[in-house]
């Protein structure tokens, strides 16, 4: 009976948490819209806050994205060549690398890295602002923290993720080309030619972009919500940061399956 009670309690807590998170997202969207309406504050101030967060969340994530993209592309080149050469199909390696990166690895790995680097930083920053009463003091000054603190971070993640995923894929393709063409001797013309003939802008590139837009929103939503809702103690912030990485990673992987089934499934 105890096990059933615990399961029931856990389920109800999860539902309540999901409800609070949805309410929080709704309130942030309303705060964003209110900020864009006449009398909602100066547009230049809001834009300035967004640009600053785009730098913090996006530009500062570039290093890890570029390096990871390069190595993953190089590994794909190496593994792909080893497998394809057994069948004499090494000329298809450009096609394999580009489709793997654009459809799957680009959006998914970028989102996982983003959750680990930017997501955890967002949660810790907002959680610390809460613990040190900075959010409360903002409220008491008549400034809505949802509009001032949360919205710029949420939209920065939303806009950054697809760009980071595209950069990841481009660098990955270049890394794969370095290994397969420059090192292992695959003919450059077939590498690029096969890629050009098989990759479609709509179904491959754009579907990858759509995936990363969804991942961007979900990862950043989880990160800012965990920070805003955390218990304002050092243990609470630490737990919230861990939850951000775990929940965002699981959400990305789960959503990837659903999106892949919808976009590429041929049932």
């Amino acid at each position, binding site marked *: 009976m105890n096990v059933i009670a615990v399961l029931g309690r856990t389920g109800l807590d999860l539902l309540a948490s999901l409800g609070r998170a949805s309410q929080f997202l709704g309130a942030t969207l309303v705060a964003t819209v209110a900020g864009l309406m006449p009398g909602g504050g100066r547009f230049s101030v809001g834009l300035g806050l967004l640009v600053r967060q785009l730098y913090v969340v996006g530009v500062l994530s570039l290093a890890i994205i570029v390096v990871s993209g390069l190595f993953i592309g190089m590994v794909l080149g190496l593994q792909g060549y080893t497998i394809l050469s057994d069948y004499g199909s090494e000329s298809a390696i450009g096609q394999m690398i580009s489709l793997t990166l654009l459809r799957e690895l680009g959006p998914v790995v970028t989102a996982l890295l983003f959750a680990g680097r930017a997501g955890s930083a967002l949660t810790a920053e907002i959680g610390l602002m809460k613990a*040190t009463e900075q959010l409360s003091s903002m409220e*008491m*000054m008549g400034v*809505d923290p949802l509009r001032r603190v949360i919205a710029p971070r949420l939209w920065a993640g939303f806009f950054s993720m697809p760009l980071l995923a595209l950069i990841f894929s481009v660098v990955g393709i270049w890394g794969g080309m370095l290994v397969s063409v420059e090192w292992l001797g695959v003919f450059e013309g077939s590498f690029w030619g096969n890629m050009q003939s098989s990759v479609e802008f709509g179904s491959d590139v754009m579907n990858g972009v759509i995936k990363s837009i969804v991942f961007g929103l979900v990862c950043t939503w989880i990160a800012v919500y965990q920070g805003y809702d955390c218990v304002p103690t050092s243990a609470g912030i630490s737990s919230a940061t861990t939850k951000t990485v775990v929940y965002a990673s699981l959400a990305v992987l789960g959503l990837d399956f659903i999106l892949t089934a919808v976009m590429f499934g041929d049932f």
Partner: protein
Amino acid sequence: MTDSIHIALQDVIFSRSGRRILDGISLEIPRGGVTAIMGPSGTGKTTLLKLIGGQLRPEQGRILVDGQNVPELRKKDLYRMRQRMGMLFQSGALFTDLSVFENVAFPLRVHTALPEDMIRDVVLMKLEAVGLRGASQLMPAELSGGMTRRVALARSIALDPELIMYDEPFAGQDPIAMGVVVKLIRDLNSSMGLTSVLVSHDVPESLSICHFACIVADGKVIGQGTPEELRNHSSERVQQFLTGQPDGPVPFHDPARDAAEELGLTAEDSR
């Protein structure tokens, strides 16, 4: 509610995690004076300030600020009302990524369209009022605890509020810093004509500057009046709090099981 009353709490009930913090409390805070709300730790003094500021909602009762019932205000009206309030948090709550100057300028930049040179003048005047004009370019991490609180005070008066609330302004201060805060609260109140509400358990400092004080315990007001009236209050509980006696109506020992029973001692052991 008369015009001389700035804030009125009427039968306010508030609970947290199933525990009743405020149990039908009623209180009137006069306009233009310093009111001290005192009481033992954990009796809901800070909760009272958060209720007045609309950061918490009571289960029951009315909280009137300038005649407006705070829990019933729409978000927009609440934020507008808060622009006429200042609050000094116990930790200072300065924005750690902004300099002292930018912290004080923050409410001015958000709520006014003042040109940059005027913002600079106002910020420096506010910092001068708390004696920290020379620290304007420092970052919050470079300030001592006392300086942090003074900068936070400068920020909370940046918009010239009508009401200022101090949450434990003397806690953790050395004697000099405490003296500075006492002087600032008194001087700001008289020079700006503010209504000041301070929440504290530092009895001598609070009574030295307030015009009116009340003592909160068990979710209710157990004594109120001028400092002189409180010192002569007939309640033993009020006297125990004011004089800091370790035992009295509030016992030294928390309620517990019989000590011998809990320690497993028998009658034979005690012989």
